[in-house]
């Protein structure tokens, strides 16, 4: 059963709706003891990374999240939170994965935010099982996670190459929105719920 960290950064209606369509059970994580109740944890998030980090701090859950040994999935800003730092609000983040979150630069001749469906190139990773190379996912973000071959498990291109998904040990993050990415996105959520 999946626990969703409920820290007030964005709406989770779409995420819970997607889990319901997949018949994956879920509940909310509000306290440290809630973390014990679930086999898998999702950290959602939209909006400003610095603000999201402040909200997460207010829950008092940070140390407990960092100590988790069960599968954890950060989505969008939730993914950015598990990195070291974001240029958005010059914010220090959870530092679970030693990579940085940077701002897309207009000089790359791209529109910002990166909004829409983009091809993803996954590496051989359980989270992407059954997902073909160049499958498209739905992205909405103005900040990206720098590509690092050690932690990257799926890359994408928008002006430059960046990480669409990262992993370190039991911590996973996806920049795209699996709950909005059609069947491919549902496959990711399904795969995550099956991780051991």
């Amino acid at each position, binding site marked *: 059963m999946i626990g969703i960290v409920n820290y007030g950064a964005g709406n989770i*209606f779409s995420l819970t709706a997607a889990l319901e369509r997949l018949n994956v059970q879920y509940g909310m994580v509000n306290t440290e003891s809630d973390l014990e109740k679930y086999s898998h944890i999702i950290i959602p998030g939209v909006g400003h990374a610095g603000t999201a980090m402040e909200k997460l701090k207010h829950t008092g859950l940070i140390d407990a999240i960092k100590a988790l040994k069960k599968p954890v999935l950060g989505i969008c800003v939730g993914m950015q939170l598990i990195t070291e730092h974001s240029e958005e609000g010059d914010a220090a983040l959870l530092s679970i994965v030693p990579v940085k979150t940077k701002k897309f630069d207009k000089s790359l001749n791209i*529109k910002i935010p990166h909004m829409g469906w*983009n091809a993803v190139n996954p590496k051989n990773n359980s989270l992407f099982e059954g997902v073909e190379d160049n499958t498209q996912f739905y992205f*909405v973000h103005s900040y990206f996670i720098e590509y690092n071959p050690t932690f990257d498990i799926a890359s994408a*291109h928008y002006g430059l190459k960046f990480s669409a998904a990262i992993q370190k040990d039991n911590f996973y993050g996806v920049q795209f929105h699996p*709950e*909005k990415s059609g*069947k491919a996105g*549902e496959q990711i959520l399904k795969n995550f719920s099956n991780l051991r």
Partner: protein
Amino acid sequence: MTKPKQMLSKRIIPCLDVKDGRTVKGVNFVDLRDAGDPVELAAQYAQQGADELVFLDITATHERRKTMIEMVKSVARQLNIPFTIGGGITELADAEALLNAGADKISINSAAVRNPKLIEELAKAFGVQFVVLAVDTKFVDGRNMVHLNGGRLIIELETENWIKQAEDLGAGEILLTSMDHDGTKAGFDCGLLHKINQMINIPIIASGGAGNMEHFTEVFQKANVDAALAASVFHYGEILIPDLKQELNRNQIPVRI
């Protein structure tokens, strides 16, 4: 200079005009016809490969807000692609209720013209990605002028200036409807769309005039817009989305298939 590698797909967006919980489409914004149940239609479009959906509540009034929220929730439960809600959003509370009901974006039009600060407030509260500015424009005496109330009211505001200002205030995307082309099925207003697209650094959705598949190819090739929106050609099955995607793909336009 080599163009940076960029694989972002061009989006195809069916637009569902909603009145009293049912889908309708106006020809030149009058003469409404009933085209079905929005939730069912939405699920069908997602199945067919639509990249996104827009719902416009064309008769949004305060008492209808509740009906709208219920519809948004039903849509969000069924739909696995993003969708935008527009119509009758005049304050932060409206937007927040829609966000919590599962809407990915909201589109604002008249309320933003009357109170441009609304764009800024919405962007600050929910992020620029949540705020779509819809603009209805018409060519009048040599100028492109903003129109309100579904095109019935002309405003002393030039379209180009308004869009530029909206981008600065924090609009995350522009939905530009050409009133001169809407309902004609004679093609999108590529000239104006190209001009506006050159001015801004946020995504732009072309709307108004789609009649056949070539029109979509044309608007992506000539105006390089990020997305193209249409209603009746999709609702009445004149264009099937899988066929359209194949056609665009044949013309080297990046799409999600």
